[in-house]
């Protein structure tokens, strides 16, 4: 597939070819009546989120800075900042200054946290998520990767594949990135050697086969001089593939067609007494649904038909993945935040015990007696037991038995829940199959993970488990609550908090699942 050059690509002189050039303070080139808005303000056909990752000093910030410099309409003040700034390698501006924003980062010359940059080609919005290379900040890289449609994995041509390359590839796989661009950078420092490039390409293949990547593209670049970034390199005639920019423009855009089974995690219930409106607000997280179709609440098994799909701009016939809508049902089944609607043929799992792969984000190590909460799409469930069973060895990419884990570890574990939750496996439905583990005391996000398997029953009957029943809670703690969805949400919140306090006191606790899924 040959990629089209972007309309915003610069000529050699660096002069923009954008259709309009208006300097603030001057008369616009187009008269008000003659302004052709389809040309000036076209809506772009979708988004592509691109992660950049790799180890320290392999030139990520420089690569993206160079891409912005060559391929986009940088503002004059940004361009001047670079031109006035210090010079690096052969008199080129320090392109990384476009990316590293924090004072602390400039002082240390490293990227601590992910930075988001936005630029438009002729047809689409490209969002660059620049992630830190330093091992100490792997958790921030994982966080950035989870938002990406495609990842640029950078390698310094002089050093080849490193542990950090494997670590990052494993994290990309874990969070569900399916397309990888392996950029072999600093080719100028290895005399533009094809054999060096081919060796790295082969080395990557020897381990990446075990991951679930759909597509890996390997591109040799020199970011500082711009070789194969936005313009083809004259130094590497042996390379006939696309430049980085061409490749980015040829990739499919962020989800524009529904995939997988229909899922609708309910965020909140909207009510308007003026017109007797009761709608379930949420974002379709997979598949699509049509007015008249029957939907099922995964936990209560109650069914209803879709009466209306409402938005402020009018009703819709269908709602597809990614759309935020309000769904009205024909019968008033009592579902609240945390419920997941499906069409019933491939329903989510009503699960009490999950098998998961996760990346440990917290600087505090896993504590077998800690209090954790599981945040899934729109639900927050107390964890009654979290057990780590194995860790991924980043040298061999094999898993080894373990019962502890700490910052930046990739672990396999079992999560027993204090009550049943509606979830999916990650491969089945990514949005309802991923989670963040929350420290119940500090509120911090301690791990991010994906669900690989689930079962409905509790792990093993434990005689010491205390069951917190609805009746028990209604007697005193919740006696002030009425009978409304808001009250139900508050009931559930209080039940969760009691369970957490008991758990912190060392008591295993379960919350009774009320038949109407109120808890």
């Amino acid at each position, binding site marked *: 597939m040959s990629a089209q050059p972007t309309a915003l690509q610069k000529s050699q002189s660096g002069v923009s070819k954008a259709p309009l050039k208006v300097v603030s303070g001057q008369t616009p080139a187009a008269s*008000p009546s003659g302004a052709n*808005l389809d040309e*000036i303000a076209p809506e772009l056909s979708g988004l592509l989120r691109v992660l950049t990752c790799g180890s320290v000093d392999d030139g990520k910030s420089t690569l993206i800075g160079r891409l912005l410099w060559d391929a986009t309409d940088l503002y004059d003040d940004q361009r001047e900042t670079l031109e006035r700034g210090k010079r690096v390698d052969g008199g080129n501006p320090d392109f990384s200054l476009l990316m590293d924003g924090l004072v602390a980062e400039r002082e240390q010359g490293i990227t601590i946290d992910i930075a988001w940059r936005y630029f438009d080609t002729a047809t689409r919005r490209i969002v660059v998520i620049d992630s830190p290379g330093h091992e100490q900040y792997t958790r921030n890289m994982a966080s950035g990767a989870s938002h990406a449609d495609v990842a640029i994995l950078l390698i310094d041509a002089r050093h080849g594949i490193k542990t950090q390359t494997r670590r990052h590839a494993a994290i990309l796989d874990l969070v569900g990135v399916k397309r990888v661009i392996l950029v072999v950078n600093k080719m100028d420092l290895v005399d533009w050697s094809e054999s060096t490039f081919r060796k790295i390409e082969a080395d990557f293949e020897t381990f990446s086969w075990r991951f679930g990547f759909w597509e890996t593209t390997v591109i040799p670049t020199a970011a500082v001089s711009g070789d194969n970034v936005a313009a083809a390199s004259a130094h590497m005639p042996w390379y006939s593939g696309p430049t980085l920019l061409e490749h980015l423009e040829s990739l499919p855009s962020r989800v524009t067609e529904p995939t997988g089974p229909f899922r609708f995690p309910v965020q909140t219930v909207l009510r308007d007494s003026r017109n007797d409106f009761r709608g379930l607000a949420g974002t379709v997280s997979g598949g699509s649904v049509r007015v008249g179709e029957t939907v099922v609440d995964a936990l209560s098994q109650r069914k209803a038909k879709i009466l209306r799909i409402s938005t402020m701009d009018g009703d819709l016939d269908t709602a597809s993945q990614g759309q935020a809508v309000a769904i009205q049902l024909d019968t008033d089944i009592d579902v609240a935040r945390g419920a997941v609607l499906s069409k019933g043929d491939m329903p989510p799992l009503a699960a009490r015990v999950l098998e998961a792969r996760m990346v440990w984000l917290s600087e505090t190590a896993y504590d077998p007696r800690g209090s954790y909460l599981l945040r899934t*799409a729109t639900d927050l469930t107390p964890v009654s037991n979290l057990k780590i069973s194995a860790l991924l060895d980043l040298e061999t990419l094999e898993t080894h038995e373990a019962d502890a884990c700490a910052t930046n570890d990739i672990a396999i574990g079992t999560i027993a829940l204090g009550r049943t939750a509606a979830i999916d496996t990650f491969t089945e439905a990514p*949005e309802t199959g991923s989670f963040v583990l929350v420290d119940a005391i500090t*509120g911090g996000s301690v791990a991010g993970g994906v669900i690989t398997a689930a079962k409905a029953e509790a792990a093993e009957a434990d005689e010491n488990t205390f069951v917190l029943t609805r009746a028990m809670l209604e007697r005193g703690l919740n006696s002030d609550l009425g009978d409304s969805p808001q009250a139900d949400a508050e009931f559930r919140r209080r039940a969760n908090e009691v369970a957490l306090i008991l758990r912190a006191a060392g008591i295993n606790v379960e919350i009774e699942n009320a038949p109407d899924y109120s808890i």
Partner: protein
Amino acid sequence: MTQQISHLDLLEAESIHIFREAAAQFRKPVLLYSIGKDSTVLLHLARKAFWPARLPFPLLHIDTGWKFRDMIAFRDKTVRDFDLDLIVHTNEDGREKGINPLDYSPSVYTDVMKTVPLKQALDKYAFDAAFGGARRDEEASRAKERVFSFRAEGHRWDPRRQRPEMWRLLNGRLGAGESVRVFPLSNWTERDVWRYILREKLDVVPLYFAAERPTIVRNGQLIMQDDDRLTLKPGEEVVNRRVRFRTLGCYPLTAAVESDAADMESVVAETLGARTSERQGRLIDHDQVGAMEKKKQEGYF
């Protein structure tokens, strides 16, 4: 079968999702309304997120007393038209002491009349979440922001202690004394904001459109004389110029640009062809190196 969904549709849906997550997770949210174009888009998205119900939270305007008169008129009309609850808060202590943008440095003025009253109002009403219109494309330290931006006690932002955000999952669980700023426009750019205003046919403050306005040149910038508090320095002269504003704040600190763009189409055309970033006209950002980063650490939104 492939549906072409525009990038604005994707951004809109994401913002609505964020509004609903925050409203469901926080005890008492508020929308920081500063009347400008970003606030206009923010409010429109909020109305979409909860339609047909009323907004489940009020608007908060931190009034420094130095906003353009057109802005205040627009604010009050918006509140009437959309049946909104508005809280206006001013740092009375600062006003009594006469802290103003003419005699004090931008950093002192911003701290006393914007950052301090924001914290005062959030504490006074015990808001635990505040929606803001900040975008990651605005400025280098903003490029690192989270959608749920955690603030420690005293509303301090610490870039090293940000919570990771994975996938679409937003963790709103707060520790004692913590609050959060929520940024539904995180992934929008200035161009998207204007494209969206055009597409949705939203009303904006008339100051965004070119008109003859009384202006002076001060420190190389065009400053509008909105009332008689802006006294002239030697050599300064009020001249009617055809100007408009790319960004709106306190009138002595917000520079105008000469322009003929008098309707929405030409404003969008001019914005999309602009050669300088929008915050160049914001004097408070250029006070010192890392100015925004420092202000954020102190609790600026």
